[in-house]
């Protein structure tokens, strides 16, 4: 029976190191352990190239090699015959392997020594099961059932707000993943902002992370799932965020106003891109204090969910087909009762970065800040309370970076920040693409022009 590479993926998680055997052109064999064998597709694997050593010289001179891998739960051994094809030194595969290797290196006490120089892509020519007496395989995890459950929740979501809750519910209940977040890409700002999270002390909605940094940033910039099985400071948040702020040269003040949610030192992390027609919209990020918590199968399942989420996001972004649909019944205003003071609420807007402060407390900046400023101005000058997405999209005061920017996501972000701050101004959805601004106190607007 031919063994399919997909069925061996658990052997490639690095729980038991693999071994590679090569032959020099003069016939002298060489054998050494391998840090990483990465599944690429049903016919290819990539080996981590870390040192220019004998193995490397042999591979380049005599490209047909042998690799043995061991199943971490049954001890079943497999020997793969591989043919070296090429080395990738940048791009999605390289970055995904680099991140994974950082976790392996740190776990093995080899941080700073294991460094990925390249991803050596090999074609799998043959797979042989080594005869032995392996342990019985553990019961399967039934991830397809979990996927179906989570997918059904997503399909029922009528809007982005519900979709986000359904995503986190599905991950928690069907996949038992308890630390989760959804981030959206801000193309112009080359950063991602947190739109929803679950399993942290504070939600971190509105917190930002630069594109290309950490597990999340690499996932978004490369459009590739990134999965790490062991704690590594190289991809830890705290450092990423600090370094990011320095790199971008921004006043770190605002960037750290909303701390990014995250476990202090997660053992396992996985970020999968939310991608539609080749365009990255955002990232689903999950983490766990447990080593090797997320498998290739989890990665597959989350990729499928992310594809469904991406399509739903595009759908919510499209203008409604029936613009005259009757307004939904107004829900009671979410404005807190203690808002009824005489003193007006001061809304301060800094034009330089569209940051908004409510009575001196930071609320939001960027596109969401410019939206809020336009809403409150119209409210104060024209006593308007109802708005729709279509007019906002055309409003020159709102600096939507480009057409692909997700306005709906900015509105959800703004709405969530207002609710979390228990602000005296709230946004209430009144129908598809429409909402009401509920204002519990008089507003005093202060605009600080850009210097």
């Amino acid at each position: 029976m031919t063994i399919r590479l997909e069925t061996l993926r658990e052997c490639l998680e690095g729980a038991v190191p693999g071994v590679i055997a090569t032959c020099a052109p003069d016939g002298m064999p060489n054998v050494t352990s391998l840090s990483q064998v990465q599944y690429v597709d049903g016919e290819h694997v990539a080996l981590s190239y870390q040192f220019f050593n004998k193995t490397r010289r042999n591979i380049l001179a005599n490209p047909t090699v042998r690799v043995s891998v061991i199943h971490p739960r049954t001890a079943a051994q497999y020997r793969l015959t591989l043919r070296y094809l090429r080395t990738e030194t940048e791009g999605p595969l390289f970055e995904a392997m680099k991140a994974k290797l950082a976790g392996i290196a740190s776990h093995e006490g080899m941080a700073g020594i294991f460094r990925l120089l390249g991803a050596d892509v090999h074609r799998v020519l043959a797979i042989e099961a080594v005869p032995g007496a392996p342990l019985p395989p553990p019961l399967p995890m039934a991830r397809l059932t979990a996927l179906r459950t989570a997918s059904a929740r997503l399909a029922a979501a009528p809007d982005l707000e519900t979709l986000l809750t359904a995503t986190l519910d599905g991950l928690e209940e069907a996949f038992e993943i308890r630390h989760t977040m959804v981030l959206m890409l801000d193309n112009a700002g080359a950063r991602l902002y947190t739109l929803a999270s679950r399993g942290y002390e504070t939600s971190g909605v509105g917190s930002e992370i630069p594109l290309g940094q950490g597990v999340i940033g690499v996932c978004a910039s490369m459009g590739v799932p990134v999965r790490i099985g062991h704690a590594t400071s190289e991809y830890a948040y705290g450092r990423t965020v600090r370094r990011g702020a320095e790199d971008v040269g921004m006043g770190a003040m605002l960037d750290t106003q909303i701390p990014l949610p995250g476990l202090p030192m997660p053992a396992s992390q996985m970020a999968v891109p939310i991608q539609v027609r080749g365009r990255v919209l955002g990232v689903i990020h999950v983490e766990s204090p447990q080593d090797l918590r997320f498998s290739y199968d989890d990665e597959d399942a989350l990729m499928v969910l992310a594809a469904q989420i991406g399509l739903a996001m595009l759908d919510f972004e499209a203008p409604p087909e029936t613009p005259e649909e009757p307004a939904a019944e107004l829900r009671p205003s979410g404005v807190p009762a203690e808002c009824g003071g005489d003193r007006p609420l001061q809304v301060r807007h800094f034009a330089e970065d569209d940051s908004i402060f409510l009575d001196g407390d930071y609320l939001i900046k960027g596109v969401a800040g410019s939206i809020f400023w336009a809403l409150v101005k119209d409210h104060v000058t024209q006593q308007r309370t109802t708005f729709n997405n279509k007019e906002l999209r055309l409003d020159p005061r709102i600096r939507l970076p480009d057409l692909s920017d997700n306005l709906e996501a900015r509105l959800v972000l703004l709405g969530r920040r207002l609710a979390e701050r228990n602000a005296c101004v709230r946004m209430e959805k009144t129908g598809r693409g429409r909402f009401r601004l509920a204002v519990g106190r008089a507003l005093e607007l202060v605009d600080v022009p850009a210097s």
Partner: protein
Amino acid sequence: MSHASHPWVTETLVSFLQGGVSISVAARGPDNLASMSRACGCRFSRDRRKLTIFLSRIQAAELLRDVAADGRIAVVISDPATHRSWQFKGTDASVAALGRGDASRLQAYVESFVRSTESLGYSPALIRALFSNPPGAGEPEHWAAVTFTPTCAFSQTPGIAAGNPLEGNP
């Protein structure tokens, strides 16, 4: 006992090889394709000039054929906890039946590997399964002893020094 021709076979190295170390072997097959297998223990000859490793005749069938036909061999021995590794190579490898005392060495090796990997989180059952022949092939005749004269030895501990010959390397 004379160690004159192999000054790098030190007491430290000998005791290292007798601990719970991981042993992998490669040989040269037809068309310069390497064959490989995991070994189940090893011993030095009394004069420390020859190294013998133990291999399952069932799991290492291809490699044993290649060794018998070609004689060239590479063996990497590493400590799973520290990654300290050595690679030995030779050109005169030959295949024989287990010698006296080898069957118990084989058993002792598995138990010592169980001990050295248990603290790393591997279950004893998993490690014993790793060194098990298929059911019905547990007798000494199902194992082979491969002996060779190491003609060179390299440190293979990951890092800058990987691949450097051991001091006094012939």
